[in-house]
């Protein structure tokens, strides 16, 4: 086997391995969300997560990959591996978005949006940032550095979620007579399982985004990327825990896990560029942002059962800007421009698409369905049939 063949084989294997890790984020999102919602909506959340994987991935196969990259060619690894690796990301944008509208979103209209997101919106964002770049040489050309998608994936999902929450409104009974009613999580062990699966998946998410492991230099970069990813996650968890303890003398595990995920989102834009200490700071700020953003969105009456706005939108923005702040050769203004441009495009387009779908088939489950639970009304399979259901 020639050296070139060996590189081809290694990089193909690496892409497939990373893809498998990223797909572990599907159960990650599913378990996290299943644990954070009430028992009467668990089957519904799980159905949504499973169908997003199927619908978004199929749309990416049929249309999205071509929209994003133009051609099905790759000389450095098997094109099928290159496709699968890219395909692994597409569902994540919708997973991020669907989690935040849990407990009141109807499944079928959400799948209509998944078709548009997986086939067009996300691939278009990839096109102008990582892919074929049809805006090159125009004033809208994006030159931000975003290794694995703090902006391209996380804040893309976050902006779509913001539009969706504005259209769908809060869960019934969440804000009553000017007061915020707390709806506690139903299954903390599942939340922990989901969050840690996401954490593990992130090693493929960021590590795989280096793109190649078949030279000494690339192997070093991959290893450093994964190390820095992990560092930001643990810094985020610790920071969230410390802040919660200072403020409330309690260690809310759901917030600590959201802090970890916030740190992971924040480091995603440039884990290959930082030295080994910077991710501690980036992740810690990410974790702190989550602790402050969760109550802030509540005060704005943006009901987000899983904290996806705080984790993915806020930290997607922070992480992308952080590359401009902490890496000398990266322009802060280019980072800011990328964040703003992607934000405007995704928010406006998502809002319009969601608005139109909502006119045809409304997104929001009616009060009766929300009271009884979406498991009965939408799925027909209760997650915990022999237990007493939560009120």
């Amino acid at each position: 086997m020639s050296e070139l063949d060996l590189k081809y084989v290694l990089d193909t294997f690496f892409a497939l391995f990373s893809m498998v890790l990223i797909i572990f984020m599907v159960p990650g999102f599913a378990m996290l969300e299943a644990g954070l919602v009430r028992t009467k909506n668990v089957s519904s959340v799980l159905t949504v997560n499973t169908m997003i994987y199927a619908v978004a991935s199929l749309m990416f196969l049929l249309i999205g990959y071509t929209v994003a990259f133009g051609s099905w060619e790759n000389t450095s690894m098997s094109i099928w591996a290159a496709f699968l690796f890219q395909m692994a990301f597409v569902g994540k944008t919708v997973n991020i978005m669907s989690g935040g509208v849990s407990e009141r979103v109807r499944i079928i209209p959400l799948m209509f949006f998944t078709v548009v997101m997986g086939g067009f919106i996300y691939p278009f964002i990839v096109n102008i940032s990582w892919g074929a770049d049809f805006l090159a040489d125009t004033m809208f050309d994006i030159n931000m550095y975003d290794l694995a998608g703090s902006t391209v994936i996380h804040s893309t999902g976050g902006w779509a979620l913001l539009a969706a929450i504005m259209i769908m409104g809060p869960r019934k009974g969440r804000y009553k007579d000017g007061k915020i009613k707390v709806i506690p999580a139903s299954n903390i062990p599942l939340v922990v399982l989901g969050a840690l699966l996401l954490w593990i998946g992130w090693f493929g998410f960021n590590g795989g985004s280096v793109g190649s492991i078949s030279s000494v230099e690339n192997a070093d970069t991959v290893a450093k990327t994964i190390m820095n990813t992990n560092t930001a996650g643990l810094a985020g968890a610790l920071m969230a825990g410390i802040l919660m303890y200072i403020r409330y003398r309690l260690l809310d595990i759901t917030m600590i896990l959201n802090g970890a995920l916030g740190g992971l989102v924040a480091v995603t834009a440039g884990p290959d560029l930082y030295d080994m200490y910077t991710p501690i700071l980036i992740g810690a700020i990410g974790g702190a942002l989550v602790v402050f953003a969760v109550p802030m969105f509540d005060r704005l009456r943006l009901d987000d059962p899983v904290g996806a706005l705080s984790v993915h939108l806020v930290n997607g923005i922070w992480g992308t800007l952080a590359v401009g702040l902490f890496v000398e050769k990266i322009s802060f203004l280019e980072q800011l421009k990328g964040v703003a441009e992607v934000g405007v495009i995704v928010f406006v387009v998502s809002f319009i698409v969601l608005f139109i779908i909502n006119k045809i088939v409304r997104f929001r489950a009616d009060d009766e369905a929300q009271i009884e639970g979406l498991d009965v009304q939408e799925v027909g399979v209760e997650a915990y049939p022999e237990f007493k259901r939560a009120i």
Partner: protein
Amino acid sequence: MKRVEAVIKPFKLEDVKDALAEIGVTGMTVSEVKGYGRQKGHSELYRGAEYVVDFLPKIKMDMVVSDEMVDQTVSTIVEAARTGKIGDGKIFVSDVDKIIRIRTGEEDNEAI
């Protein structure tokens, strides 16, 4: 025959059951319940927001004893279930008209 219904703190179940077995209470039915009394529930914190948990978990014990046994049963439960802190629970005593043991058809005191 009297029915003795006691709502107690869950962690006191073993103690109360053992004490009752010692004085000769032959059977009981236990259920997990939730409730509150004059002190109401307590508040918890979720993602930085406080909320009140109105209903606290309790154990409800149901048993039927002969008239002579009532006082001893009640005092045994009081002794075994008391912690002195809020939420120790309550005991209700009421009359029972008839008891039938399904397997044998025995009635009243024989069926306790």
